[in-house]
């Protein structure tokens, strides 16, 4: 499978889900296919799944999609155990496994040497964990996850092929502000409060 085609399938059903994407070219591809202030680009390798878990726990009525990679998840395998323990019904964890550290010189990851991330997720306690066997299978799995009300983990073996896309248009701080303003607007809540200076109170 080609990652870009998989991302198109996610974009087709993502709706108003908040989307956290791991460091690397995948984030740039996603941003072209589904530009939204509800996208958060992660810069700490490994932290995608944990940031998505925090969002899922904090906003249980909203679908949260984590777009993860094999190198990233291998660095934070324990997050699967914590996700399984907290079992948020609104979290969809998708891993694109190209078996290399694509953004870091394409050295082989442990999945290229046999580690089965879906097997790890299932053994960690995420029962609804499956490999998508084809692009159609993947699209069906993501659609089912979006309409269902269960924590799920979807693995997709993808090629190392990259799609030429522009660089990410905003920096981390602007990404944060836009994301929070998007959540405030779409959830009708106030996150940033304007505090009076201490001298006034």
């Amino acid at each position, binding site marked *: 499978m080609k990652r870009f085609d998989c991302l198109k399938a996610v974009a087709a059903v993502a709706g108003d889900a*908040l989307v*956290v994407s791991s460091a690397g070219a995948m984030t740039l591809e996603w941003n072209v296919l589904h530009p939204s202030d509800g996208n*958060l680009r*992660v*810069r*700490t390798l*490994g*932290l*995608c*799944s*944990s*940031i*998505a*878990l*925090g*969002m*899922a*726990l*904090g*906003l249980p009525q*909203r679908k949260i999609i984590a777009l993860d990679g094999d190198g990233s998840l291998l660095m*934070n395998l*324990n*997050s699967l*155990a*914590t996700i399984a*323990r*907290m079992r948020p019904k609104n979290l969809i964890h998708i891993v694109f496994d190209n078996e290399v550290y694509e953004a870091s010189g394409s050295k082989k990851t442990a999945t290229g040497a046999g580690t089965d991330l879906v097997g790890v997720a299932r053994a960690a306690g995420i029962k609804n964990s499956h490999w998508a066997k084809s692009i159609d299978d993947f699209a069906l799995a993501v659609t089912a996850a979006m309409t269902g009300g269960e924590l799920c983990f979807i693995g997709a073996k993808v090629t190392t092929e990259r799609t030429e896309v522009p660089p990410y248009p905003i920096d*981390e*701080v602007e*990404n*944060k502000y836009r*994301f*929070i303003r998007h*959540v*405030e607007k779409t*959830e009708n*809540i106030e*996150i940033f409060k304007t*505090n009076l200076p201490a001298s006034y109170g």
Partner: protein
Amino acid sequence: MNPTEAAKTIVTGLKGAGINLIATLPDVNLADLLREVEEDRELIHVPLCREEEGIGICAGAYLVGKKCAAIMQNGGFFNSNNAIVSTLLQYQIPLLLLIYYAGDVGDRTFSTTGSLTEPVLQALGIRYYIMRDPADAVELIKRAQVLTEDAKRPVALLLTKEVLGRRSALASL
């Protein structure tokens, strides 16, 4: 205060500061505090496998409107440093860190970890306060939460055996 009273006081302080999601990893000296956090139905408690994931969980929860704290030992703070730098500091995300000060003066474990705790906090530009007296805990937690929210950077409170009710305070500490 005994450890249970001290733990209840700290949880009262956290809730008074508006904290509603707490990620934790145990240290034996934190046992009473973590029990109080676990048993409080108004708090979302996230027991961690490794402290660094807790930084991500708290960052994600902050971005959707939660007020978070992470409770860990200083060894766990060291474990969390990449996430603190490239997520919290890079994105300017506040977080209250409650760090058990292993290797504090007279604490018979991890003296190397203790000796490097404050220098690492200083190197990261994280403002920190050493908590000794349980009577100050509620007010200090409230002030630290104001600081982290205003500065949009993490702020650390170092939890000693004294503030946890496990050792009597010395006048000079």
